[in-house]
């Protein structure tokens, strides 16, 4: 996994989203240090003000914490917090678009339910 930027939204938001994803998937664990504004700015060629704005979003959501003179660290309970938010957004982010696409394909409710069941079965055999 790496940082990748497109035109989906403001750059600072993309930085915040991707750092969040890295925390969620455990690339950066709770209590661990994340790259500094300086590092991200230099490596990704992004204005430090933009990087800082993205990081501050995560600080405000208490996913990151500043330790004076040391840098930014993943806050305790960050992963759990991200999980909660994502659960709340799940219906809007995934279910609505799933149903919309199913409608375009003339897949009815019963059929869609079967497909979801199949997904769960395949998922469990893969584990």
């Amino acid at each position, binding site marked *: 996994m790496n940082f990748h*930027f497109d*035109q*989906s*939204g*403001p*750059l*600072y938001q993309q930085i915040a989203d991707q750092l969040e994803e890295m925390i969620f998937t455990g690339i950066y664990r709770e209590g661990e240090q994340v790259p500094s*504004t*300086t590092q991200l*700015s*230099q*490596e*990704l*060629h*992004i*204005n*430090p*003000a*933009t990087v800082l704005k993205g990081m501050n979003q995560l600080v405000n959501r208490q996913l990151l914490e500043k330790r004076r003179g040391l840098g930014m660290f993943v806050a305790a309970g960050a992963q759990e917090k991200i999980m909660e938010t994502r659960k709340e957004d799940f219906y809007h982010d995934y279910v609505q678009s799933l149903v919309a696409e199913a409608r375009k394909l003339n897949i009815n409710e019963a059929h869609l339910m079967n497909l979801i069941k199949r997904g769960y079965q395949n998922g469990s055999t893969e584990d």
Partner: protein
Amino acid sequence: MEALKINGVSKRFGRTQILDDISLTIQPQTIYALLGENGAGKSTLLNIINDRNFPSKGEVVLGDHEVHNHYPSLQRLYLMSDSNMYGKRTSVSGMFQLADEGYGHFDYELAHRLTKAFGVNEHARLSNLSTGLTTAAKITCALCVNADFIFLDEPMLGLDANHRNRFYRELMKTYEQRPRTFVISSHIINEIQSLVEHVFVLHDHHLIADEDVENLLNRAYTISGPADAVDQYTQAMKVLDQQTVGKIKTAYVIEKLDDQQPIPDDVTVTHMNLQQAYLALTNGEDEINE
């Protein structure tokens, strides 16, 4: 720290209008892009700001002082440009010494590191270097000079991808260590998009955009889908540019979209990058004038 103000600057050469009533403010410690097609007047504007050329009307002011012929103000401004203002025999290290004499406290340590990284021989004469290495030597000088407002006219000219990447990295590094203003004039818009905070667009000798990149891109949209659906959706909008490929049409708009107006299912709305926004702005301006 004071801002640099350009107040109603116009420039005429005989009957040719090169700049028409340009007013803008350059804040301290900010990175700007200055965009515009060839001949739009970018270099003339940069030369006027740095007192290397003179306006027919208007003035450039730093704090309380007009910059023209005011040595203490001029010592805070540095222009790196393509034009060769050095003697035939001037070497790379000679250029550094001149910057040190003119501005003081030249960062030789960084300069040595950068020339080494760029593969520039400091003893070589500037006139003997290739375009790319001349540029590398000049941007090295610009990053190490002690000035508060640094103007870079085409700082990527002739640089290969590796050297451009190094330049962006070093620019971010030195900017973070010692924030100061950089104004970058370039045609490689996509590569500088994330480096700059604010953009000026010169078009047809006028200033047509003066805005934070984030704000501009936030309301810059490409709208594509079946032509009739796109036409209907954009009916009340000012379409700056459009393309049609077969039955699919893409319209470019820079305005806030109405949240109340639903986006049709077969229409896709995405944000533009800075280059697309620049093209839409300049094209939209041409449409008005036609």
